[in-house]
């Protein structure tokens, strides 16, 4: 009896800890954890140049950068450059998805093919995309094609390699189980291999998205007349330092948004796996 009573009060106490007011508190705590360091960083950015800790010419305070960003946004320049960048990186990214996921599935499925191709893929994968940029410019010119091509190249390998390893690492027991139910190879592939490798493919998609932006900005700095990379480079050359920072901020915002969008998509597609991660 006494034990039961103690147990009950314990349970009640625990419950009140997760009750509505408690939950609100927990949520606020989480929000604090997520924002406090960023807020401190932004504050430092504002204060350090004003206090003379750094040279305000090269690192203008955040408010000036924000002003420049707003001006660029209103004039439409920012949208033009962002659109140019986004269409290039999205073009290369989706082209890479369309080519390398089917190719990776095929290579992973036919073992002999992957044995032949693996050394070549290793070689190409370890060749930094930017190192080949001059080749792309020579072959494809300074126009859009070379930019899309370099993004495609940078996205291609993370996607391909993750897709191959996704297919290769499907639990053999699942394959055995499906085969024991008399599934044909085609159905086995469609019903077991593809769904089982989606989580690994997604790792590749996220890597590819990150490198598509990275490589594109660098490519635009070298040879382009539009795009956020060009904006940053041009602003630096023309000594429009706040504009340069505005370009940088825009790029990190795009990167963040793209990553969150992909994480959300991943949650939807591989919801069955989520609890492992949490």
């Amino acid at each position, binding site marked *: 009896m006494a034990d039961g009573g103690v147990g009950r009060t314990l349970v009640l106490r625990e419950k009140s800890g997760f009750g509505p007011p408690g939950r609100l508190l927990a949520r606020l705590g989480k929000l604090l954890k997520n924002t406090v360091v960023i807020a401190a960083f932004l504050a430092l950015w504002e204060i350090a140049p004003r206090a003379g800790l750094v040279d305000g010419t090269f690192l203008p305070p955040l408010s000036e950068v924000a002003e420049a960003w707003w001006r660029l946004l209103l004039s439409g320049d920012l949208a033009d450059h962002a659109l140019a960048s986004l269409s290039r990186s999205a073009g290369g990214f989706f082209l890479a998805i369309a080519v390398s996921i089917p190719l990776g599935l095929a290579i992973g499925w036919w073992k002999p093919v992957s044995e032949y191709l693996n050394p070549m893929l290793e070689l190409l994968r370890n060749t930094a995309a930017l190192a080949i940029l001059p080749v792309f410019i020579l072959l494809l010119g300074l126009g859009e094609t070379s930019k899309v091509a370099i993004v495609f190249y940078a996205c291609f390998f993370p996607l391909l390699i993750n897709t191959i390893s996704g297919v290769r690492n499907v*639990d053999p027991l699942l394959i055995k189980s499906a085969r024991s139910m008399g599934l044909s190879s085609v159905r086995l592939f469609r019903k077991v291999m593809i769904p*089982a490798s989606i989580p690994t493919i997604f790792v590749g998609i996220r890597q590819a998205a990150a490198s598509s932006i990275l490589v594109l900005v660098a490519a635009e700095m070298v040879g382009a007349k539009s795009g956020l990379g060009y904006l940053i480079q041009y602003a630096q050359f023309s000594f429009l330092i706040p504009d340069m920072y505005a370009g940088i901020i825009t790029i990190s915002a795009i990167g963040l948004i793209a990553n969150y969008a992909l994480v959300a998509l991943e949650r939807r597609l591989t919801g*069955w796996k989520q*609890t492992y991660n949490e």
Partner: protein
Amino acid sequence: MTAKISIQHVYKSFRVQRNLGHLKEEFHPISALQDIHLDVRQGEFMVIVGPSGCGKSTLLDLLAGLSKPSSGRILLDGKPIEGPNLDRGIVFQQYALFPWKTALANVEFGLEAKGIGRRQRRKIAKEFLELVGLAGFENRYPHELSGGMRQRVAIARSLAYDPDVLLMDEPFAALDAQTRETLQSELLRIWEATGKTVIFITHGIDEAVYLGQRVAVMTSRPGRIKRIVDIPFASRSGEEDFRSDSAFVKLRHEVWDLLKDEVSKAQEQEKSNSLEAFPGGRSPLKGAVADG
């Protein structure tokens, strides 16, 4: 007597590739099964028990049609087994559920392979989840279920497409003792309700004697059938636990007597295998084993 499954003088050997690191790769054939001869009657609960590594699972793969015997043949209803088919259902030790499918969708999987329409599929799958005691868990994913529940889903999946024969490969070995006993009696209930022919592989003697109408004892590698022990109990799912029955204890002892030499032989084999794989400690230990 007409046999549902007739295993006739089946041999199976593998060519195993051993990479000993410093040596060149060696191929040497390993004989897994030797002259297996066994008839299983329609509706019978047949248990195959043997020491670890005796080729029990190899035999099950042959029955499933996932591999072919090196010689001899296996007949199902008088016809040789050509390959995997939905007339045999397999339950694996590690459940082998598809983690991206709910319990219901997992049970539907085999029905889909059989070409049954969506609505009918759903209805049958629900019935079988109910049969294994999982009504209300239709929309759970495998990782949201306990080991015992997962194995129930796997059993429901194999029963749902209505195979003639249920092949079970140590299905309860990964479960805790209490869950295992519950599932054993549930399995007997399901077997009595459905009248399937069951071939159940295990290394547990209690499990073998409790479940089987006959228990085939296998030798250590290469696996042969040493003896088939009849377990003459009419009904197992009665009120009292017949595991405490004196006849049960006697049969259990009989099976253990048949098995114990094989178990120690299998353990010797395992030792000498790992000595071969790690030749550093070879000479002194090998001498000790030979002396003992």
